[in-house]
């Protein structure tokens, strides 16, 4: 029997994922022994797990680790994104218990699933092999299908899960086809190998297999980041999914998809930069416009935030199109700030929601500003941040993204971006119009704030403001993260 040479595994490169997976599995076991009224403990356990994972992640800063023969790379880029993802998961989990117990579906499997999804996302962030990225994406997707449909008794939740599942699987087909063609054109699934091969063989770059492979991969990721015209699942799924899941979906998977998208395009297809920037230009314009324009006429807050989330993907794509250090760093920073401001906004939505998501409409917010002033102020801050008004994180993020576009000469794109941003103000303001300028129609059944949600809100608020006023450190980290 010949010996099998196992290549260097380098567990350090996947340590965070390992830790989180273990935590998730332990939670699965613990869940069995936790009575159903105390499932909230699992949330705290998850948070502890996430914190440990985060610590492990951060400890790797500045020391890139390559593992499994180049299948994963734990570099600053991955670490930054992982921190974003862990924040997304953590904040979403913090608001989950409140929502789940209200909706009566607080089975403990929710938390392991969230963590598994996070593991998938983390693999997307650090994967440098298309297989790893694909599997990370699928791990994430499968968990999300379940999470979206988690509230089995709710038709909307079912529908969200099913829609997401059908369309997600469909898009997987295209992604896979793209990977297949790329593999055919270069003979490898490793990003670095693809790029090296294409650079060495000029014929590859002009091979339609290679280009179309890239385009289809881009389509696959566009679906995940909800870029038009692959965005259409987003509003329905976001609206139907349980609110914490929506919060999570709008921040985490988007960030993970951007991580993988960026990594793939920059690592594997530098030769085709012209092609994909062109594509992304169009996608960015379409995405911003469609998201913002349709959001104008939405009444349901969750749905409005879903469209806004599409628009925000568009802004991020602006930075992507620019394809320079500022753009990439801008996306990193934006994803981080978006995580805080968007989950913050959803946290407020969770707090004001009634069972069965009865009052999810903007009209139901009437008079909130003076009934629950603190809550309204929080929501206002998050919405102003989403609208990109200083001094909030959203403004700095947008500033960076648009700067990147301008630096690369995409002034037209930047102008379309800012005009969209201006249009978006309308629907964010609309919420405030109802909160502050209208009289309440009826009294709220106020269920109160749980400590977990309060913690989430505090973290989100502080981060939104801090990133808006003194963003220097984080921006610098983002800049370092994109020095490949």
């Amino acid at each position: 029997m010949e010996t099998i040479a196992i290549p260097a595994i380098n567990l350090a490169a996947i340590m965070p994922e390992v830790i989180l997976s273990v935590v998730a599995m332990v939670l699965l076991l613990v869940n069995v022994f936790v009575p159903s009224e105390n499932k909230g403990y699992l949330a705290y356990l998850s948070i502890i797990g996430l914190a440990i994972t985060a610590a492990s992640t951060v400890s790797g800063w500045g020391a890139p680790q390559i593992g499994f023969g180049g299948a994963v790379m734990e570099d600053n880029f991955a670490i930054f994104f992982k921190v974003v993802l862990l924040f997304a998961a953590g904040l979403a989990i913090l608001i989950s218990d409140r929502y789940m117990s209200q909706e009566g579906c607080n089975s403990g499997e929710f938390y392991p699933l969230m963590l598994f999804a996070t593991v998938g996302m983390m693999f997307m962030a650090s994967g440098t092999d298309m297989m790893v990225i694909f599997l990370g994406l699928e791990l994430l997707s499968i968990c999300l299908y379940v999470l979206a449909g988690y509230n089995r008794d709710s038709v909307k939740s079912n529908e969200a899960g099913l829609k997401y599942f059908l369309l997600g699987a469909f898009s997987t087909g295209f992604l896979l086809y793209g990977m297949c063609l790329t593999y055919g054109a270069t003979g490898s699934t490793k990003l670095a190998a693809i790029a090296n091969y294409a650079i060495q063989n000029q014929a590859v770059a002009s091979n339609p297999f290679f280009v179309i492979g890239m385009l289809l991969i881009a389509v696959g990721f566009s679906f995940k980041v909800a870029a038009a015209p692959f965005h259409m699942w987003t509003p329905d799924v976001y609206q139907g999914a349980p609110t914490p899941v929506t919060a999570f979906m709008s921040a985490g998977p988007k960030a993970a998809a951007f991580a993988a998208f960026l990594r793939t395009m920059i690592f594997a297809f530098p030769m085709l930069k012209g092609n994909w920037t062109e594509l992304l230009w169009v996608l960015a314009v379409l995405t911003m416009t469609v998201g913002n324009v349709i959001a104008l006429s939405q009444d349901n807050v969750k749905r409005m935030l879903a469209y806004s989330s599409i628009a925000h993907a568009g802004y991020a794509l602006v930075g992507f199109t620019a394809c320079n250090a500022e753009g990439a760093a801008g996306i990193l920073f934006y994803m981080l700030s978006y995580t805080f401001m968007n989950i913050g906004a959803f946290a407020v939505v969770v707090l004001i929601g009634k069972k069965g998501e009865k009052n999810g409409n903007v009209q139901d917010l009437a008079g909130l500003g003076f009934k629950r002033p603190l809550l309204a102020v929080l929501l206002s801050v998050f919405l102003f941040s989403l609208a990109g008004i200083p001094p909030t994180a959203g403004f700095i993020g947008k500033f960076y993204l648009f700067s990147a576009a301008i630096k690369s000469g995409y002034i037209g794109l930047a102008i379309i971006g800012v005009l969209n941003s201006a249009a978006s103000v309308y629907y964010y303001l609309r919420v405030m119009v109802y909160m502050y300028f209208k009289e309440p129609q009826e009294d709220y059944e106020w269920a109160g704030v749980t400590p977990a949600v309060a913690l989430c809100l505090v973290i989100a608020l502080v981060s939104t403001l801090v990133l808006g006023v003194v963003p220097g450190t984080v921006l610098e980290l983002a800049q370092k993260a994109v020095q490949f």
Partner: protein
Amino acid sequence: MFEYVWLIPLFPLIGVVINGLFGKKIKNEAVIGGIATLAVVGSFVVACGILFQLLSLPGEERHFVKTVFTWIQCGPFKADMAFLIDPLSALMLMVVTGVGSLIHLYSIGYMHGEEGFYRYFTYLNLFTFSMLLLVSGANMLVMFIGWEGVGLCSYLLIGYYFHKKSAGDAGKKAFVMNRVGDFGFLLGLFTLFYYMGVNHNVWTVDFTELAKHADLIPVGGVTTVVCLCFFLGATGKSAQIPLYTWLPDAMEGPTPVSALIHAATMVTAGVYMITRMNYVYIKSPTALLVVACVGAATALFAATIGTAQNDIKRVLAYSTVSQLGYMFLALGCGAFGAGVFHLMTHAFFKACLFLGSGSVIHAMHHALHAEHSSADPQDMRNMGGLRKKMPITFLTFLIATIAIAGIPGFAGFFSKDEILWQAYANPFHGPVNFVLWAVGATAAGLTAFYMFRLVFMTFFGETRLSEKAWHHLHESPIVITLPLMVLAALSALGGWIGVPKVLGEALGGLPNMYEHYMEPVLAYSTEYMHTAGLHGLHSEAAEWGLMGVSVLIACCGIAVAAALYVVKPTIPAAFTSTFPALHRAVYNKWYVDEIYDFLFVNPCKALGQFLWKGFDVVVVDGIVNGVAAVFRGFSGILRHVQTGFVHNYAYSMVLGVVVIVACYLFR
């Protein structure tokens, strides 16, 4: 004394502050009126001192500038708060403070018991202050403060009875018309300032500076523009065609106000201003012709209207417009001195006339009030025979009327005769001269006619009042009659300081003191005319002849008036019924107000309405809201793409893929 020139405007200002802030608390009319009057008298005293000091100096030294502080300084532009003393401003100071004092005194009696007594005197003092600033300002900017200030006070005083809509309207009309003039004033100022600065590096609005560099002012061209712009200002302030219509309406104000502002002082500001800038005007024959023609036309036009008015104050108002026309005629003929001379004499007799009419109205008001009659106390058709009840008023009124009619020996004769002679003899307008003279002479005849018509209708014949009212009618108190008497005396005698040369020689070498007095002010113009070879007609015969003709015309006017209103009072009625259209036109002031309404006011309002409702709301805002609506509409449409059907979503995805791939494949 010159150093204290700033006291002159300061006194009335103090009066304003005291009465304005504390008048309501003081309540005592005597105190309020006393303070106000004393303030002006104080100014008068200072003015007298200045005049005497001025007279004690030799001609070429009669010029002094007192700078108080620098008001505006910005880049090359500099305007000091400074006062100029020269014969012209000294004369004007005398007129303003002198007549002003009398009218203040008169007002104490006339305004007795009026609500807002303190307000009246505040305004009146404010007016005096502004007018003094106007006539003593050493540069155009200070003059402009006064210029606008008097406009403001005019507005306030016309609108004194603000509860009457007509009063408010009249005030507003006066102010706006004045503003039209100011528009011209400012443009003229800008043009002159800019031209002199950019071409000759003389960045100044100072009269002294400008006069020093008067040689640099070109003949014609830009000077004409400047002059016409300033003249527009003058037409506004001095109620000349085309901006005269506010003055008759201004009679809504209390009568002393009419006397002070709308007869003696403010309306003459234009004359003063042009005289002040005579060295500019002399350089532009075109502008002079325009001034002369406008003046002559106004003189005649207003006189025609004056013949058909029944309101005693309106007649006087049109008379004022007409007399101002005379002054401008003089200015337009290069006879700046004559213009100012008429300004002075006019101030005397017209103030006297207005105050006299005020006295009549005062009396009529009380008489009618006693009877609880709602008849108009100002309508001459309600009067008649008043000379019996109001002898002092009648006598003073008669003297002033004779003066205005131009009967030799009285003030008006000297000044008017000088103007007519200059119109005929000036070297500027060639053949037009005769027309100017003829128009002027006709207007003089009309003046005599309507003034005597006024006297006859008011003081002669039988009274048209009821018995009871007649019984209550009596002469005005001393505070009212005293100013009348002083002014009547001045009307009678004031002209003798400027006896025409021919007449003076004939009368045994009476000197023309006035002409000599004004020489320093007009030195440049005279010099310029001399060097430019502009010499007027010199013919003693012609001068005598014209003098005779004008006296004759005046006498004819009086005779006609006597014939129509004393001897055969039925003729006017018959005339009216024979030419109803003509009468109606004249009575309605040739429909000028209506024409203005039609041409400017209504179109402006309509345009405003249109711009607001039609343009601002529909177009400009429409576009703004339209963009929003388009977005919302687009949103409303686009959201229907989101059908909720998985198929459509998948379709959109595949379509996206196909398009992307096609773009690559088929480029």
